[in-house]
């Protein structure tokens, strides 16, 4: 018996996509608002990025990329991102979707996310990477027959990537001297890109609290794996801490996009937890 009835891959994936698409809509609206960044004189102009090593393409695909990344075409892609995410999110929330349509919308959204990554990695963050994982799984989910092992595998993949992301991040922090000594948060919050002046001052003025917070984050992230092996209370405790963690990061660090992309994976983590219990 679970506290939350996410016992089928279909329910899990519709919740995952309902949450993830909100974040993608906000992100697309932000990109359209600052579409000058991708223009000919913008910081991420394709006229230079096309020569970069990471995206240098074969001769046959180069003209295609040039057309796709020209300012007007790229703006159209961003509009497509906004509308496809909105359509998919609405259909999931209202639970009115045909697998074929949902699969096509997921594939279109995955295409746009990969296009952004292909254009350049500059400016992308972890929320973009988590969204790619989600939509790879979503596309294959809707391509797979109902009640198939493949569908279950798609949801398990999202859940396992989520658990992996917290665990890897926690272990990497444990390996860092600044995290262990407790100076990391004071330092991060003192920057203008990821900080808030008052938070930086607070953590510098309270080193014991700062150290406790650093170790709290390390412990939470390293132990996130307990969501799949612990009981229901552990599962919901960690998901509640995770939600609070991401909301705090949105306010303090400006990482609002992480709230949606990472919390979107939580229904898949709940399903993974449930599936492991059934399996045993």
């Amino acid at each position, binding site marked *: 018996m679970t506290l939350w009835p996410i016992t089928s891959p279909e329910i899990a994936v519709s919740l995952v996509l309902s949450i993830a698409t909100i974040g993608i809509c906000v992100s697309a609206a*932000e990109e359209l608002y*600052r579409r000058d*960044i991708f223009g000919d*004189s*913008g*910081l*991420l*102009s394709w*006229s*230079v*990025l096309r*020569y*970069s090593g990471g*995206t240098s393409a074969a001769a046959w695909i180069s003209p295609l990329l040039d057309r796709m990344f020209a300012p007007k075409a790229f703006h159209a892609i961003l509009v497509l991102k906004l509308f496809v995410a909105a359509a998919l999110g609405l259909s999931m929330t209202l639970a009115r979707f045909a697998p074929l349509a949902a699969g096509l919308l997921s594939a279109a959204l995955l295409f746009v996310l*990969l296009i952004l*990554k292909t254009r*350049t990695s*500059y*400016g992308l*963050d*972890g929320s*973009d*990477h*988590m969204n*790619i994982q989600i939509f*790879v799984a979503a596309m*294959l989910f809707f391509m*797979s*027959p109902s009640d*198939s*092992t*493949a569908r279950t*595998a*798609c949801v*398990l*993949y999202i859940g396992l*990537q989520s658990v*992996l*992301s*917290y665990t890897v991040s926690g272990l*990497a*922090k444990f*390996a*860092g*001297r600044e*995290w262990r000594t407790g100076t*990391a948060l004071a*330092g*991060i919050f*003192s*920057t*203008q*890109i*990821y900080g*808030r*002046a008052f938070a930086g001052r607070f953590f*510098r003025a309270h080193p014991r609290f700062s150290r406790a917070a650093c170790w709290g984050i390390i412990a939470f992230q390293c132990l996130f794996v307990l969501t799949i092996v612990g009981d229901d209370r552990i599962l919901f405790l960690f998901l509640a801490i995770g939600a609070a963690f991401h909301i705090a990061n*949105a306010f303090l660090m*400006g990482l*609002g996009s992480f709230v949606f992309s990472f919390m979107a994976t939580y229904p898949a983590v709940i399903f993974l937890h449930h599936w492991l219990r059934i399996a045993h």
Partner: protein
Amino acid sequence: MIRGAWDGLVVVLFGGLLLATVVHNLGLKSRRLSLLEGLGLVPKWKFFAPKPGVSNYYLLYRDRFADGSVTPWLTLHGMDSDRDAIAFIWNPNRRLRKALHDLITDLPYDLCETQPAIFKLTTAYLVIVKHISTLPRTAESRETQFLIVEKYLDQPAQTLFRSELHRL
């Protein structure tokens, strides 16, 4: 039969991607991993770790006029300003500021003394020069130059790199 094969294919694919993610995050490198990473299929999950970024980086630029006089250094895109209060939900400058940060930290500073020609051909350098060259400016400007500064808390700012003058 077909359904079983499809199930197997999907399971193997996701198993492979999960394994690749673990290997990638352990720091092991290979051409296949780089390809998967480039496509966005294998993520790196080490957020702000093991060494978190605790410095402010600023990109400044100035122009030189035909008579040899120069403008004051200007900070690009308000990098020295704090985020808006509503940035937790509406942060349209997110990509711009992250991209500037990525470009600055991506520059191979150790090459600027030893192999300046290669340094100036890096994507990050070219992106910065191209962008600064296309900013709106007066018609009298003849050349432009950029400066990258690192500042940690209340300590004095340190110059990481000062470019040559680039003709406009």
